[in-house]
């Protein structure tokens, strides 16, 4: 009798255990779904908003390049070519396409259909090939942001709007003539920032980000790994190392803007380093990344089995040889992962860079680490703050590009880890 009841109890317990296991697995699946769902929502939302920014409206115009304007007396001279009145040629072509625009006000609003960037494009075309002078060429003129937004259906024409009903009619005429085209938006990838949304691009910010990351990794990787190796392998465990450890952990939790304040006070005010420069941004982000790298590297080092260390010591390897020949190669994938995660966090960081002036409006593509520059997340912040409708989609597009960079970095981390781990 008792035997039977105890067996029943055992069966009941087993059932309960299985149920608990199933429930636990369900919780896991639910949490993963929520996390993935949030990520998809973010990326989906950005993609939906930003997708259109990858296309840009162009107006195809036949432009006459009069010989007497560009090469007076048949003489081709670079100075003259630079000074020439390209706007006038473009405008003339516009007027030819839309006849009957006579009043000055109407003309001005007609000219507003194309962007100032089109002039530059035309000039570059001519400078690149002077044989074009005297002929009639077809050029894809960048449409102004309002036209672009109108074509994309983001704004409507009407009084008080950015596009008047007259302009809408002209656009219709051009469109009917097959002169309106949507093309891949190369400006977005090749230009620096601009006040004109149709000319604004992320290339400047991307270069700024790369230069900043270069400085960050160059400083924080060797420093962090050296510090981790010393703390983990050489330092005696005593009160001092405890204090250092607590402080490093604290440093990892310090709000990033504090590092920006530090950079402002120390590197800009005291050392007089240039404002808005990737050099200073890189140093500040290196300080911010350092604790992450140290903590990750220490974890990776301490995960190396002690038996390997003992074997090496027993063979008569010096402490340095133990670390360099045996511990470091095994810990390297972990150290690398920590570094890339730290760098990825630094790549997405804005607050400390605002403090050191990397938030300035910078058109030029930075050429070195001391040139004024901005970075991708700050560029996003700047565009998100701009009133033009066209910047809304560009903000989302820039976010997509930043996310792509982050995903790429994490992918590299995974690939490198796999590659190094394969050495059994």
């Amino acid at each position, binding site marked *: 009798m008792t035997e039977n009841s105890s067996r029943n109890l055992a069966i009941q317990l087993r059932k309960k255990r299985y149920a608990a296991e199933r429930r636990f697995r369900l919780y896991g699946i639910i949490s993963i779904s929520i996390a993935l769902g949030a990520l998809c929502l973010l990326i989906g939302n950005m993609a939906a908003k930003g997708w259109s920014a990858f296309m840009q409206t162009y107006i195809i115009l036949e432009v006459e390049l009069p010989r007497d304007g560009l090469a007076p007396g048949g003489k081709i001279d670079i100075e003259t070519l630079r000074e020439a009145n390209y706007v006038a040629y473009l405008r003339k072509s516009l007027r030819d396409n839309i006849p009957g625009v006579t009043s000055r006000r109407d003309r001005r609003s007609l000219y507003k259909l194309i962007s100032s960037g089109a002039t530059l494009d035309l000039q570059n075309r001519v400078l690149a090939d002077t044989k074009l002078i005297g002929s009639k060429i077809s050029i894809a003129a960048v449409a102004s942001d309002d036209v672009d937004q109108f074509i994309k259906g983001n704004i409507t024409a009407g009084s008080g709007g950015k596009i008047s009903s007259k302009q809408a009619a002209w656009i219709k005429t051009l469109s009917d003539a097959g002169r309106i085209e949507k093309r891949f938006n190369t400006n977005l990838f090749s230009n620096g920032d601009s006040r004109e949304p149709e000319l604004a691009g992320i290339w400047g910010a991307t270069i700024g980000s790369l230069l900043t990351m270069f400085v960050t990794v160059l400083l924080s990787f060797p420093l962090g790994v050296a510090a981790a190796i010393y703390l983990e392998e050489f330092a005696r465990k005593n009160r001092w190392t405890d204090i250092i450890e607590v402080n490093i952990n604290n440093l990892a939790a310090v709000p990033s803007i504090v590092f920006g304040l530090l950079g402002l006070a120390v590197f800009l005010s005291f050392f007089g380093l240039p404002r808005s420069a990737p050099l200073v941004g890189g140093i500040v982000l290196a300080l911010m990344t350092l604790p992450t790298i140290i903590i990750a590297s220490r974890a990776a080092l301490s995960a190396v089995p002690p038996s390997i260390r003992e*074997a090496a010591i027993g063979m008569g390897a010096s402490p340095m040889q133990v670390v360099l020949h045996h511990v470091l190669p095994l810990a390297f994938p972990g150290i690398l992962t920590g570094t890339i995660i730290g760098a990825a966090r630094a790549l997405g960081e804005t607050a400390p860079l605002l403090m050191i002036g990397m938030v300035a409006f910078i058109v030029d593509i930075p050429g070195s680490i001391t040139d004024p520059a901005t970075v991708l997340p700050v560029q996003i912040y700047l565009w998100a703050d701009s009133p033009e409708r066209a910047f809304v989609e560009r903000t989302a597009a820039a976010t997509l590009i930043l996310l792509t960079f982050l995903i790429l970095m994490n992918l590299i981390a995974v690939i490198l880890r796999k590659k190094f781990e394969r050495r059994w």
Partner: protein
Amino acid sequence: MNMENNRPETVKSVAGGMAIDTAVTGEKNLKMDGTEETTIKMSARNLDVFYGEKQALFGIDLDVPEQSVTALIGPSGCGKSTFLRCLNRMNDTIDGCRVDGDIRIDQSDIYDRALDVVELRARIGMVFQKPNPFPKSIYDNVAYGPKIHGLAQDKDELDEIVRSSLERAGLLKEVVDRLDSPGTGLSGGQQQRLCIARAIAVSPEVILMDEPCSALDPIATAHIEELIDELRENFTIVIVTHNMQQAARVSQQTAFFHLGILVECNATNEIFTSPSDERTQGYITGRYG
């Protein structure tokens, strides 16, 4: 004074000359079944070891004769490994471990400040309880020691050292066609023999083994016991074991530890046939008799 020689013969003759100076060595524990001229390779005098506040070894006096096998036996936690690790100063790497007393190899103090620990560990090799080959190729495992100690002039010489070490460890036949494959991919017994090959590749004078067979099956164990018996001709061996038969089979001298005290040390056949201490008797018979 450290002798730079790695050739056992030379060391033996020098040590033999010094062993006459019994002022340091003392005259205890020299009862090696009548062979009086056995020289003492290593000796511990009045050895106390502390882990922090806790004392693990109490006044150990032990001599390790040259070219013989000394077995350390005793219940778990009695300090066998601790003693073994003192002999090549592996305890230096443990935080809070303090060693008092005197340990000598060929009459020179191994805790001498002027002594180079790295060189000492090249003279005193170690094989651990769990096989711990480096996560490198079989070749690199064996070549590592000679490389860092500069024992080979060129690649050919290194190849020869690797080959002969594997040969002596009885592993060459099994791995000769896959020297480039990972050492961690071998079986447990093969891994342990690889570790032995790695240890003898630097021609040490003494080899310390901490329960080298505890993770192995009887066949692999027999293999290694055979190997130990062969190695005795060239090396001095100290082995920790929980297996009484093994101690009886491979060793010439046996030391019984209990609660951090060296209870008895004598020729192996004496210990196993007529132990003088009843704790020894209890341990030998109580568990394995």
